């Protein structure tokens, strides 16, 4: 079906306007990483000074001009230096916000990585083995087990928040990684079992039959048949899970009563409530740094990412 060309132009125009509105806060954030608080106070809308300096010096390199240049530092002091020195000064100037933010965020980032990776591994192991049994075998009580897994979706987080805290406290898990990892696995496995089960149920029975005839046990079937065939569905589950864990803010905030195991989300909040929030550049750098790991995951695995998000929506 051919459409008139102007229609496509209109569509693009509308979508581009919406996309730029959506991205505006993020572009501003990215721009402000490299601006100091002082620059920010002077004018709100502006390109980082350090970048203007860098462009100026780069122009000297391109034209082969090796004159000395005047460098203006953060406090407005002027100095005349040669171009290599000017270049490295502007680089230092630009990266002071990000490097300061990184030094604050590093422990949070490490905790986030540890918790996300452990949760993802746990959910994959527990979820896939349960889904394997539920999808390939008939045993007494199978329906009951499946229904008890599914019906947990009925309970919203707001119902279990306070009692879960009481439970974790009673188990003596406060201020440990387990306080995050175990509940995350418990709730993350539900949707994982759902996704794995429907995938495993679609695999042909002949494969399992012949493996059993060859004498393979459950472990052999799991390692030699399920794992190699299910890579795409594993990546979907992993991405769904990492996205969920990375965004958890309130739970880590509550169970870290001594503040030692904060993850990136709760750490950002702590940062925003502390003295450091006075420094805009530091905060904007922190927001950007906290987005980088998922951005890399997003670029590296856009398609499983999209699938992971839409199947994650099933979780009510």
């Amino acid at each position, binding site marked *: 079906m051919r459409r008139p060309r102007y229609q496509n132009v209109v569509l693009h125009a509308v979508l581009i306007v919406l996309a730029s509105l959506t991205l505006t806060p*993020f572009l501003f954030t990215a721009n402000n990483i490299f601006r100091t608080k002082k620059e920010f106070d002077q004018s709100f809308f502006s390109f980082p000074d350090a970048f203007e300096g860098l462009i100026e010096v780069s122009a000297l390199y391109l034209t082969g001009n090796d004159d000395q240049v005047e460098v203006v530092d953060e406090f407005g002091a002027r100095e005349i230096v040669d171009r290599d020195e000017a270049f490295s000064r502007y680089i230092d100037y630009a990266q002071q916000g990000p490097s300061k933010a990184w030094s604050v965020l590093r422990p949070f980032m490490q905790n986030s990585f540890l918790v996300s990776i452990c949760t993802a591994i746990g959910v994959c192991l527990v979820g896939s083995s349960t889904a394997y049994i539920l999808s390939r075998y008939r045993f007494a009580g199978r329906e009951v087990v499946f229904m008890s897994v599914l019906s947990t979706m009925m309970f919203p987080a707001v119902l279990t928040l306070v009692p879960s805290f009481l439970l974790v406290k009673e188990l003596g898990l406060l201020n440990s990684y387990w306080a995050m990892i175990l509940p995350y696995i418990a709730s993350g496995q539900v949707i994982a079992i759902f996704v794995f089960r429907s995938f495993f149920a679609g695999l042909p029975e002949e494969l399992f039959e012949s493996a059993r005839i060859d004498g393979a046990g459950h472990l052999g079937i799991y390692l030699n048949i399920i794992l190699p065939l299910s890579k795409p569905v594993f990546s979907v589950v992993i991405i769904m899970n990492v996205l969920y864990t990375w965004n958890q803010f309130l739970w880590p905030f509550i169970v870290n009563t001594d503040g030692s195991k904060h993850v990136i989300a709760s750490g950002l909040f702590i940062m925003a409530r502390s003295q450091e929030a006075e420094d805009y550049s530091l905060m904007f750098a922190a927001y950007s740094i906290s987005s980088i790991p998922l951005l890399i995951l997003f670029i590296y695995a856009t398609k499983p990412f999209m699938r992971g998000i839409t199947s994650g929506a099933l979780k009510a």
Partner: protein
Amino acid sequence: MKQEKFSFTFTCYVIILPTLALLFTFIYLPVVWAFSRSLYDFEIGSESRFVGLGNFGEYLFSDPTFWPSMLHMGALTFFLVCVRLTIPLVVAKLIHSLSTEKSRYVYRTIFLAPIVVPGVALQLIWMNLIYSDVGLLNETLRAIGLANFTQGWLTNPDTALLAIMVIGFPFVSGIDVLIYYAGLSSIPEDVNESCALEGCVGIRKFFRIDVPLVLSQLKLILILTIINGLQAFENVYILTEGGPGYETIVPGLWMYYNAFKFQRMGYACAIGVVLFLMILTLTIINIKYFRSAEEVKEGA
């Protein structure tokens, strides 16, 4: 033979044991506790006192935050429902109408990209960048000569709730567009072709054909939005802490304050139970009365 069957069942249960153990410890046990502890008045580490339904009575009938918080929650949820059922659907339709698959993919990716920013960072970005005194909104107003409209959007009682609502403007990032897009893509090609033959195109086709055929997606988003809307309070906590005064308090936040600020664990559990019952009721109503496309087709 019987022995063999028993050992087969036993093996199955051994393999699913971790799942069951985690489910019962970290989900079912807290659910049971939520109900049982809501009948007590207790602080952590001190004697608990049985009060029966006293916590519920106090919350429903004599808590001064009850009605304001329900009103705020209702307003926030209603706004989100209106927005999420319309704008992303229109955008998905616009993307779906583009002529090349490549451009469709590019736009879908662009609208999804903001999901990499952690939720907390998103709220804080809006707080620091858009709403602060030297923020995008106030500076833009000053730049175009509307300086007397500038204000502390989140600290002014008149605008605080509105300011919380419009975070995320223009509401097209994230999963909604993808979900509607998937719905539009699953409309069979012969339906589209016969529409074109009948001369049913553009806005008329959108309302007569597309909207009825993505009803199940609309229903999914409706249910999700209501469930999230009733329990969401992290954003309010980050942005205003329920203030100024109690101008933006929501029930979930009040539960959080009771548990972790005032040490009234039993009372907090009772608020959680009330919210759960509300969510359950609304979800059941949704599932029952909002029929999806498949059910309409089956004549259910």
